[in-house]
């Protein structure tokens, strides 16, 4: 019996070169190495098909003729072939450094092993030295399907926090150690971000080309990382006094635009647009004794009430 690898290679060649779908019987007749008995060759072909799909060979199942019940298999060349990319060897060296320096977490074994390296092999090989690991990014099962939907502009459906969601994925962003998919939420009719690792279901893609991403849309800025701005509350402008020892990095964090006043003792007053009071309070409390809410009176009173409650709860202990 012929080697399995040989049979698989011939199977790919036959399905690529056929001008029409081939029935299972036609395939078995054309590709040497299948058993003679029907049930055995059917099982063997199912295994081969699974192996081909595992490595990404696009086998399509089609009706033999219009209105025909009978189906057959073929590989469309346009789906199979990698279009020319015209990389230079310098560019291959740079990509090789990238897939070795940046590791997708969950990949064990050789640094640089995994999907990125497989991609690079198809693009003409791994050239030059490997880099030592510089960064580890988490690998999340939903990412390939989200990425595919993003690039094909297909609306996706999935389950998130127990509920169904429909999203036009405008972009994929890695921030604060997490992958997010950012896009237009079809139910809430607003831009929303979802943490990819918290998606609770598979990704169900719709048809390709279902939406256009708005011109100039920047997923990184759409994914706001200032938690006090994540919210639907009536916006209010808050002023926060930050003491000298923390003012420098808070300024760096919020940007110079946020500085309302610099005081002689080195402290600074920062202006923040708050649409989520809870997140704002949490952020200010994170600075402990180094911050004080100055305005508006309403947020200052909130803070006093909150702290008084915590101060009181320990009094009897």
């Amino acid at each position, binding site marked *: 019996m012929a*080697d*399995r690898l040989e049979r698989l*290679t*011939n199977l*790919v*060649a036959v399905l*690529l070169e056929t001008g029409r779908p081939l029935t299972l019987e036609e395939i078995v007749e*054309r*590709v040497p190495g299948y058993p003679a008995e029907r049930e055995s060759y059917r099982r063997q072909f199912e295994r081969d098909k699974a192996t081909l799909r595992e*490595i*990404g060979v696009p086998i399509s199942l089609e009706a033999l003729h219009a209105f025909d019940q009978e189906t057959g298999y073929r590989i469309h060349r346009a789906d*199979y*072939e*990698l279009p020319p*990319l015209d*990389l*230079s060897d*310098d*560019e291959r060296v*740079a990509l090789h*450094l990238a*897939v070795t*320096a*940046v590791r*997708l*977490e969950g990949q*064990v074994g050789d640094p640089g092993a995994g*999907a*990125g390296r497989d*991609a690079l*092999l198809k*693009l*003409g*090989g791994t050239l030059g*030295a490997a*880099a*030592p*690991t510089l*960064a*580890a990014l988490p690998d999340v099962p939903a*990412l*390939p399907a989200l990425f595919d939907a*993003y690039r094909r502009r297909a609306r996706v459906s999935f389950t998130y926090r127990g509920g169904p969601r429909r999203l036009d994925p405008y972009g*994929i*962003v*890695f921030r604060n*150690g997490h992958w997010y998919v950012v896009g237009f939420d079809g139910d809430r009719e607003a831009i929303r971000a979802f943490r990819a690792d918290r998606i609770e279901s598979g990704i169900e893609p719709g048809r390709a080309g279902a939406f256009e*991403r708005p011109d100039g849309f920047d997923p990184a800025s759409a994914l706001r990382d200032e938690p006090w701005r994540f919210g639907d509350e009536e916006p209010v402008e808050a002023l926060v006094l930050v003491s000298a020892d923390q003012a420098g*990095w808070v300024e*760096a964090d919020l940007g110079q635009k946020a500085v309302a006043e610099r005081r002689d003792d080195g402290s600074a007053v920062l202006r923040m647009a708050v649409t989520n009071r809870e997140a704002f309070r*949490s952020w200010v*409390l994170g600075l402990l*004794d180094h911050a004080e809410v100055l305005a508006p009176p309403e947020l200052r009173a909130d803070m*006093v009430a909150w*702290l008084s409650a*915590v*101060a*009181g709860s*320990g009094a009897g*202990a």
Partner: protein
Amino acid sequence: VTRPDAAVRLRRLLTIIPWIVDHGGSSLDELAARFGIKVAELERDLELVPFCGLPPYTPDRLIDCEIVDGRVFLRFAEYFGRPLSLTPGEGFALLAAGQALLAVPGADPSGSLAAALGKLAGLLGAGDGMAVELGPARYLEPLRAAAEAGERVEIDYYTFGRDELTTRRIDPRAVFAAAGQWYVDAYCHRAGDDRLFRVDRVRGVRPTGEHFEASSGGAAGAAGPGGSGVSAVPGGPGVSPGVIFNPRPSDRRVTLLLNANAAWVPESYPMESVEELPDGRLKVVFVASERAWLERLLLRLGPAAEVLDPAEVRVEAAEAARRLLVRYG
């Protein structure tokens, strides 16, 4: 050594055949290096090629593979003229790795990597909707430079857990990004021991003019080849804040009862145990090494948390709240 299975070898064959079709006369050595395999493996794969082709498998329908003076030639393999297209997972992984490396401060935004990523994004139809941010890194470059050159530096460091700013001399061995932050793995002369520092909490870096001997020990394990100042991520794959946080025996064990709206706590910090009670509340046990860290957590949680144990922590939270209230007169 286990033999790679048929899927791995088929993927390799469908990658190498098109390259040889395009680059007839490549040497076995060059091909093996390019595709990251041994010459013997390559020869074993190529031995199979002459048995592959199309029906009726007569000589003119089989792939003709010739190796002359270590150079490989293929004929009658035009249908394998292009490699298999990238799977979504492969395209994503390559683009993500490239964008991450390009996001490292000091990367050339118009170099070979950027050019390659531009072509790749074009091929995949990926546009500019992907972004990789490795974390705030104001002092990343001086620290990487110091690690690379083996230079001892003095840093101002904000210890978040103790709410304290200290100055210390460190020998930075490696700088790496994990779990959304940049870290520097160093020997700390103040602690007299190895420490991991978060780069975003470094508030100043000054040269000391002293050098240190790069050693192979330390938290980061073996340094990378050539002592390039970057090394394997400690803890190997799966680095998480839980791995980076190592409790000491003297640390306090705290038990809290959390309302359902405080479920983010066990998601954010390493916990020893999490138990859901019939009323929907969570009973969590964790180790807290620093008082300021715990104060912050309890102040933020407010009424959403009840301290079960130890009782003194309840008092500390109340004291912290009173201390902050002083500012509000």
